[in-house]
């Protein structure tokens, strides 16, 4: 290895630093996996999986999980975790349907639902920061509590939503052409936000601080960053995105039911991990999380098209996760080798 001080010609090489190359490789690897999955299912289903309607289906499915993913991804980069996103989203969706039925106009109703999300984040952050609870346990607890409220509000019924704006948000298609029906408004919004957040994460002070706190909270504190404040903000952001996911879901279904986001509750974390956000915090990014999301959703959609039962979807998601974490392990081993 070179032992020279920085000179102009070595500056040129900086873009190829080891870790960023590996991280990029990780995203690339996942992208590759995405195409492999796409091709395999296309062949197996004799082209049915590539039908424009089906592609639209994938995007539709992704809207909800894209909201779930971006909040939890930010939190995970900062070294924390939130298991309550599913319960939070389900409760917000249910709450929204409930207040709409009670006659509250749409705009305040949505604000109220988002407040529930903020409250979730606030409670999670308080448990973690004030009572020093492990995020895993704290958010598990709030998740149970949230689910309890869902059951109490729903009382085993489905609450229909008749608001037309909600229908538009959930199912209206934009950007359609020829026989491709387009992308749902909600999915567009989710992807747009994901792009913006991805850019902010890399370009702003706050974004950088998320990485710093995740990389070493002690050192960050000694450099004048307040890890506690960061953790509050990020838990609240995560709560907000979870409620956005819940609202999107009920908008698409045009009703709220108790099942809500139960099936998708770990999709955010799974996608983030698949995309290279390590659980310890401090690395990964939105692009990776998006690719992780793509992999996850094409895979489960492919299985649906093949008529494979939902039980196998979960098995497959678990398998993917194991696969991704083995990659992480191998990557770390590789990194250690190059250092030694």
């Amino acid at each position, binding site marked *: 290895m070179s032992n020279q001080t*920085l000179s102009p010609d070595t500056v040129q090489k900086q873009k190829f*630093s080891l870790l960023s190359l590996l991280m990029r490789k990780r995203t690339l690897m996942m992208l590759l996996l995405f195409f492999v999955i796409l091709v395999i299912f296309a062949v197996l289903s004799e082209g049915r999986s590539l039908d424009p309607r089906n592609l639209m289906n994938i995007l539709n499915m992704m809207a909800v999980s894209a909201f779930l993913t971006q909040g939890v991804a930010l939190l995970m980069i900062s070294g924390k975790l939130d298991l309550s996103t599913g319960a939070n989203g389900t409760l917000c969706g249910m709450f929204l349907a409930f207040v709409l039925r009670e006659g509250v106009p749409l705009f305040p109703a949505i604000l109220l639902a988002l407040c529930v999300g903020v409250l979730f984040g606030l409670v999670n952050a308080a448990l973690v920061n004030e009572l020093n609870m492990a995020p895993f346990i704290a958010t598990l607890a709030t998740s149970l509590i949230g689910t309890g409220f869902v059951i109490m509000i729903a009382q085993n019924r489905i609450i229909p939503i008749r608001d037309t704006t909600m229908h538009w948000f959930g199912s209206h298609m934009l950007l359609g052409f020829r026989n491709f029906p387009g992308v749902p408004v909600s999915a567009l919004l989710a992807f747009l936000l994901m792009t913006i957040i991805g850019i902010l994460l890399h370009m702003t002070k706050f974004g950088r601080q998320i990485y710093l706190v995740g990389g070493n909270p002690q*050192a960050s504190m*000694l450099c*004048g*960053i307040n890890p506690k404040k960061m953790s509050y903000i990020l838990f609240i952001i995560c709560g907000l995105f979870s409620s956005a996911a819940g609202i999107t879901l009920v908008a698409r279904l045009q009703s709220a039911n108790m099942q809500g986001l139960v099936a998708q509750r770990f999709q955010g974390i799974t996608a983030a991990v698949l995309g290279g956000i390590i659980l310890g915090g401090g690395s990964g990014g939105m692009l990776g999380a998006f690719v992780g999301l793509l992999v996850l959703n094409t895979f489960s959609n492919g299985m649906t098209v093949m008529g494979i039962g939902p039980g196998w979807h979960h098995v497959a998601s678990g398998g993917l996760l194991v696969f991704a974490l083995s990659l992480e392990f191998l990557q770390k081993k590789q990194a250690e080798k190059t250092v030694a």
Partner: protein
Amino acid sequence: MGDILEFKNICKSYPGVRALQDVSFSAKSGNVLALLGENGAGKSTLLRILSGDVSPNSGKITINGEEQIYSAPNDAIKMGISVISQERQLVPSLTVMENIFPGAQPKTKLGTIDKKKLRSESNAIIDKFAMPIDPDDLVGRLSVAHQQMVEIMKAYRRNSRIIAFDEPTAPLTESEINVLFGLIDQLKAEGKIIIYVSHRLAEIFQVTDEIVVLKDGLLVSQLTTSQTNENELIKAMIGRDLGDTYANLKRNDQIGDVILEVKDLNTNKLKDVSFTIRKGEVLGFAGLIGAGRTEVARAVFGADMISSGEIHFDGKKVTFKEPKDAIKAGIALCPEDRKDQGLLLFRTIRENVTMPILSRIKSGLFLNKKLERELTEEAVRQYTIRTPSINKITRELSGGNQQKVILGRWTNSRNSTKLLILDEPTKGIDVGTKAEIYQLVCDLAKSGLAVIFISSELTEVINVADRIIVMQNGQITGTVMREEATEENVLSLAMLV
């Protein structure tokens, strides 16, 4: 007829550091042998080799001439070696008797633990040492001293031939120390080999028979306790040769106004700490590990709670609620543990250097990456950080370069640092880089910065600092000017009561 433990040509090195170099000595049964040396002299490494935690690069340990080979963690115990380290190896949620008999409890015919027998056997041991402990007490509820006694009884129960103590008196009160010494005498009378590691000279004269002095991983002398004195020991412990480096330092001779004044500072670890430091001054903090130097730094920096006392900085009375406030006022801290508190090991040099100045390299909403690059390159040049790129992750740098990255964080042109606190800045760094860092410290002082220089290496602190504050047990025990400082007078302020 007694046992003999021998260390033969033990060598151990870690990356960049030779912890032990060709150390040979022997210990006899019925004798207490002291291991003495400064921080980092190699005492702990030696004990860890004895307990099998660490294997030496070369050399061997023999008992009665027979080489001991460690292959499993339990081997030291099987060989009859017990090392009582500073960290307790007890299970706090279990009772005293369960701790004395770990994994060797007497069983009933049904295979369950025979509590009655366990209790009576434990009682026999407890009575032998006349301890006021009940075998049914939970270990977690015992005082630190009694927990230590339980460890000793555990070692005794195993019939250990060799018992090593690592700084056993550090957490004990005076009367507890006397009880411990009584115990050691008893073990000695039973023909055990005892190895005793301590910083406290008075104790060494009280309990030991022989003394082995280590310095920088070398055995410098082996003495009989009754034939030596404190001065001889202190002389043996010190005296390294970096003389030219220090003589060649270009120091700052223009010392300005007082920048920081600390008055009667108290925290849960510090007692009535008062001192001042002036612009352009390098103020050394000497003392043993745990003397409270780091705590002073953290308290001034707003990282630890202050229970009482006043801090005046730059002419104003200040109270820092968090490090952020201290940084804003112009104080910077380079913490003692580079890996835990200093660096983000998996992020780049660039991201590490700009950590505290992110708000200053913003243009509008976004970070100015070009400015960030320029500032990092400036730090790399100024501190001659050896790296092919500013985007190298810091884990891949040497210790010295890592330290320079931390220094670079605080002293670039976008920072308004007025007081720089360096906590053990040369720990684990090779001699060449150490010399560079000393000169950097002097250069920073020349530019008008006040520098607090905390170090456990005596030679270094008395040669680099203009004035040296010596601490012991959370209190300042004296202040010495560089011209009058000798290792002897500083060490005696740090060690003697």
